[in-house]
Every structure is written in C-alpha cells, then in structure tokens.
C-alpha cells in the first residue's frame, strides 16, 4: 500500500449500499432493472417518444403490417390497428397507463395498508385473533370478484378498476405490516427508545419505519406485478379501461377482432405486458435475494 494510514479506516457501506452491491452482482436482476427502467422511461416521456398520438386515426393506413414484415413500413414501427392508429404509439402510452396506474394503486394500497397495519400492530390491546382471521379470509376473495362488484356499483372504467385493485391489495400490506410491527415491538431497541420517553409516533417514525422500508419495497414490487397483471386483465375483460383509452389489456382485446388479419395487434401488447411483469418480478426477486444475502452475511 502506497499510503500510510494511521487509523484503520474501514469503509462501512450503508445497508442500502450493501443491498445495491448484492443486487448488482446478479446479472439477471440487473438486466431486469434495465428493462424496467425502459418501461418507466416510456411511461414518463410517452408524449415525447411516441411518434403519433395514440388516438389519431388514419383512414388511409388501416392494419399496416409492422416494419419487419415485407409489407410493413418504417413509418409505423409496429404497424397500425383496425382504425389506423399507430400501434407503437399506443403501446408506449399503454405502458404509461398500465404501469402508471399500477404504481398509483400500489402506493395507495401501501399507504392505507401500512397505516392500518401499524395501528393494529402497535395497539397491544387489539389482540383479537378474530379480526386477524377475518382479514385473512377477506384477503382470499379474488381481485376479479372485487372488481366485478365495484364495476357493477360504479360502472366500468380505469379509475374504478384501480379502486378495486387497491382494495384487493390492501389486506396483504396490513398483514405484513402488522406482523412486522408486532415483532419489532418486542425487541430491545424499541424498549430502549420507549424508556427514553419516545411517543408511539416517534417510535414508529424513528425506529420501526426505517427497518420496515425494505420489507415494504419487496412487498411493493410483488404487489406491482400483481397490479399490472390485474389492470391489464380487467382492461382485457372490458371492465377496466374503456375504448379508446390505450391500456395494454384493452389494446389486446381490441386486437382480438382482427387477430387473423393482423396478429401483431394481439402479439405486441401481450409481449409488452409480459415483459413488464417479468422485469418487475425479476427486480423484485433480485431485491429479495440481495436483502437475504445482506442479512445472512
């Protein structure tokens, strides 16, 4: 070593830095992150990236094949649909709507779920296993069913389907938060800060929340992949986003009518949803194993 060091200056990476290092060491996870970043970019900058408006109909160019087919043209990268709308632009906007509404749903569900879960976990008086079991039982009700009920009450639409999915996602956040908070509350450091005179709110914000954030990120990634699949499924079933809104599931359902003549109208939105969910899952998986590695080593 060229430099003389008087004190042993060990580098102590923060927990997040260590997680990141572990995450980066997995190539698959990193590729997943890059793909996901692409989708996020598509969603954020859709108006700049999309060559056409997703709603603009072009009567002269119905069902043009995608550019890699001999009959296609480079003007429409992914071809056009039965109304002459540019499929590439629709898919970019579709990413925005599907991923965006998925994110909003997850954040909303996370916020509500964590609030309820924390209250349930911190109030030691509420030790009713009945409530716990009931929550589990209600958690078992399929999202599709909740969505059908909400659509029946409020009518079909993207926002209503988002409410349905939020409702379906909340219980698992409640559950995880509750058991996490309850476990932490038993630990010594909480007792220490309690002895220091911290209020429950201070305990939560200063002691529990920082420890919980990783669990929340992992649960959030899991919930996001579910939310994206559910939003597109509801769009596909015509219960969610309504025409002409370019939501990936709805685009796919639209394409079914011309599936024989223009298979790319079904293939491309499907592949997009698949890649989006896959990248979310890979990133979530990578995060989880990175966290696990950090904890075990």
């Amino acid at each position, binding site marked *: 070593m060229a430099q003389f060091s008087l004190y042993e200056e060990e580098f102590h990476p923060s927990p997040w830095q260590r997680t990141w290092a572990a995450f980066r060491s997995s190539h698959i996870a990193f590729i997943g992150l890059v793909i996901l970043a692409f989708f996020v970019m598509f969603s954020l900058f859709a108006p700049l990236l999309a060559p056409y408006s997703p709603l603009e109909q072009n009567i002269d160019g119905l069902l043009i094949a995608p550019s890699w087919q001999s009959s296609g043209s480079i003007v429409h990268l992914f071809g056009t649909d039965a*109304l002459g709308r540019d499929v590439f632009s629709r898919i970019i906007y579709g990413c925005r709507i599907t991923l965006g509404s998925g994110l909003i749903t997850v954040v909303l569900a996370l916020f509500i779920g964590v609030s309820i879960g924390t209250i349930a976990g911190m109030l030691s008086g509420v030790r009713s296993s009945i409530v716990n079991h009931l929550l589990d039982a209600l958690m078992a009700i399929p999202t599709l069913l909740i969505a059908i009920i909400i659509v029946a009450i409020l009518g079909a639409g993207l926002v209503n389907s988002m409410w349905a999915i939020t409702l379906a996602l909340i219980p698992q956040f409640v559950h995880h938060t509750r058991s996490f908070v309850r476990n932490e509350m038993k630990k010594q450091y909480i007792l220490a800060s309690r002895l220091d005179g911290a209020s429950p709110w201070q305990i939560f914000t200063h002691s529990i929340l920082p420890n919980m954030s990783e669990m929340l990120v992992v649960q959030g990634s899991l919930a996001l992949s579910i939310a994206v699949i559910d939003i597109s499924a509801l769009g596909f079933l015509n219960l969610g986003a309504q025409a002409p809104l370019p939501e990936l599931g709805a685009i796919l359902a639209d394409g079914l009518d011309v599936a024989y003549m223009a298979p790319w109208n079904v293939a491309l939105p499907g592949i997009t949803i698949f890649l989006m969910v896959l990248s979310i899952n890979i990133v979530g998986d990578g995060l989880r194993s990175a966290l696990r590695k950090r904890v075990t080593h």
Partner: protein
Amino acid sequence: MRGKLSAICLGLLLISGCGRNVEHTFYTSGVIYCSESNPITFNPQLDTSTTTADATSHQIYDKLLVFDPDTGQITPSLASSWLISEDGLTYTFQLRKNVKFHTTPYFSPSRNFNADDVIFSINRWRLASHPYHEVSGGQYPYFDSIGLADNIETVERINGYRIEITLKRRDSSFLANLATDFSVILSAEYGDNLLVKGVPHQIDIKPIGTGPYIFQDYRKDRFIRYERNEEHWKQLNSAQALVFDITPRSSLRLAKLITQECDATAFPAQTELDVIRTNDELTLAEKPGLNIGFWAFNTEKAPFNNPDVRRALAAAIDKNTLLEAVYFDSATRAKTLLPTASWAYQNDADDTAYNPVLARRLLSDAGVPPDFSMTIWAMPVKRAYNPNATKMAELIQRYLQDVGIDAEIVTYDWLTFRKRLQDGEHDSVLIGWSADNGDPDNFYRPLLSCGAIPSGTNRAMWCNQDYDRLLDEAIETNDIDERRAIYQQVNRLLFEQQPLVPIAHAYRYQAYRNELNGMSINPFGGVKFGGVSKTE
C-alpha cells in the same frame, strides 16, 4: 421449435389419451352452428331480430309459403296452393295434408296440422281478444310495424284444409309477408293444452312446430339443441342433431370453425373473409344482401327533431370512409333505404355528401351550441349490415369532433341495448335492418312509419303523415311502375327530412366447412338447416 412442441404435445396426449378423433362417425351425425347471440324467444312472431329468426323459423317451424332462395319467388310450403280473387282482396289457401307436429317430452300431438292451426297462428297476432294475444308481452313487432293486423278483415275456415283470408285494402306485399320468417305456424292443440294447464307462456319457451328439427334444450349463453324431425313432411336429408353453439365473439367463431368445433358460423367478420377464402377446408358463400345499415336520430329529442340538425349531422360524416374502414369494401354505399337487389332501387336518388363546412353552418343556424354533446349508441352485436358498430361509432365520433360536437359512445349487452333503445333513451343509434322479404314495403314501413314506433323497429322515432300516406298508396296498387314512382317520392321526402342516414348495403356471407352438404345462403332472413348434413 414447432416439431419439438408437437412432440411434447403428442407425448402428453399419449399419456392422457386425449387425442382428438373427430373422424369418428359420432361427430358426423350432427351439425354444430356457431351462432352469435341468444334468441329472445322461440317464437319469431314476437321478435324481429335475426338471431331469433335464425334459431327458430326455418328450424322449428314451417310457414304457409316460402321464398325460393335462388329466384326469390314465393313457393308453396304448408299451403300447397293458393288463389287470389279478382278484386285482390280475398286469398284462398289449400293446406297440405299429413303434416305432423313435433312429438316431444312436453307435448304429443293427437292430430295433424290443419286449418285451425293457421287460424290460431294468425289470430294470435291479429286479434287483441285472442287468448294468446297478451301472452309474452302482446307485442308482434313485425306485424305491428307493417300494420297487417288492421288490414285483415277475416280469416275463415272453409274446411279442414282450406282457409280464406279477406283484406280490407289491396296489399301487393301480402303474400310476401306470409312467407317471411315471422309468419310461422304454431300448433293450436298445443296452445289449448297449455291454456288448460295454466302455463300459456310456455308456448314461446318450449316451442312446437312442424319444421325439420325438434327443439330439445336451450341454455342461455351456451347452446340450443335440436334433433331431427323424422316425420317432417318434406323428406329432407337433414343431420341427426343440430346444435347452435352461442359464441358472441366472431374471432372465436372463426377459430372454432377452423378447429372443427363448428361446422358453420354466423356473420364472419369482414376482416376474416380472406382467411376463410384461403383456407382449403372452408367455404365462403356470398350474396348481395337485402339489408341496410344506418345511423338513426331520435327525432323525438331536441335538437334532433329539427331536420336541419339531422341534415347537418348527415353532412358531417364521410360515408365512403365508413365503408372502407368498417365493411372493408364488402358493401355498397347506401343512398336510400333500398339495396340494389330490390326491384324498386332508384339509381339517381339524392345522396348526402361529406361537407363539414355546410354541417357547421347548418348547426350554428339551428342554434346548436358549440359545446353540444350527444350520444351515439353502437349495437353490441355484429350484423351483416354493420359488422362493427363500435368502430363505426368511433369514426363518427371523430367526424363530429370536427364540427364541434362532442359525441359519447354508448353500448350495452344486446338485450339491454334493445330494451333501452325501445324506451327512446338514445340520441342517435347505429343499427340496421335485414329484409324479411324482397318487397320495398318491407324496408320503408318497419323502419320509419308511425306504426313502427311502438313496435320498436322505428329507431328514429320518426312519424310523418305524408310518408305513411305514400306507403299506403304504394301497396294498394299492383302496378310495378306506379309503385316505383311512389317510392321515388318517398326517397325525396326522406332525403329532405333525413330521419336517418343510410350508410351501407352489405353483402351476406356464410362460412362453413366443406364437409357440410346442402348449405346455402338464404337471402331472405334466417339461416336454414333443413336438408343440411355432414359427409361421413
């Protein structure tokens, strides 16, 4: 890759023993037809929709007369011959003997078809005092819309196999009306039976007729099952069983046709025609259709009660584009209600032209505010006359945006849609009409006459005394040229008033597998399976 996949698949199939063996004789004994929707009733007198007619009139029932599918001539069916009096008011029908009604678990006939059954069937829709008139709602849309009940003076039994019908006014379309899908013959004996049991409405749910197939079972959204009527009077070589597989999605219907799950399908989508044409195992039959797809305005609602507004909306859309985008050019542009195949077709009729400038001016003159919004109801089912109403609505929505109108597209499930339409909840609707017979009266009267408002076929809710008077005049004469001249006046009136915008006359298509014998397009109304069978 494909080889590998099929190898895996074959492996799986060998293990589970679930290979498909569609060559087995069992599968050739019956015919499966992929229909597009649920029939509303099993008595076509009660409903004018093609779905109901398809499922009933040619399968379960027979009529007095039928149209020859090739020539369009009226030919004998249950009436073996007929006679028209000099003054054109009295019609005498000689009925066929030894015609048996269906024997089913719920009814066994004790006698053959005779004059009583004809009188029962006609009087059911004709006489308000008939015990069956009010059963199942008391609405007979087809007959109500053409006002036939009012024109019949008497229906009399001369003897067991001869009846005489007397009209009040001459009606040159009368015989054609008796040959439509709706003029089916029910069993009077079955009716009496049910009346005794106190369940008269069963007559329209568990039908009894004389047709080539006997009704067995119906499950909503799933299937209708029939078996061959071994005792049908016309010895037809029909399949042992007939099943209607209710499949609303047209892409799925085509897929089933390809995988041999259906032998024939209803309404192939225009986009799929090429796929069918290029498939060696499938046959696509086509014929110019007797139909009209149109955009009707609810003339009972402001501002659509103003002809200027209607004209403006008509000028705001480009029909040629709609033809191209929705029908993929498998239709001809409609100028009037009548398709080219009709003898009264007027080649030089006035037609609206795409003119958004004119449209905008007319609208502002009529005092329609610039942020006006309206609804376009798009029917949820595919029909030859409008294979994709939603898509058409989306195109029209764009055109209307250009003239400053904000249009909202409304659609419901077919039953709900029709019910709400009947209640007049719409501002405008994209729908159409398939002719039941070749007579021009069959277009003009059901679609726009005053009498057709309550019967629910006049979607424009438009009532014009001049129009009705002209139509009456037209059918009181048998002189073709005179009638043609009257219909030209009618066309002019409609062009001025524009209660609806005629859009297209579509070709009719029928797709079926090559194994099917005896299949043909019936230009007049519903599909026909009598005499259809499968090669073994």
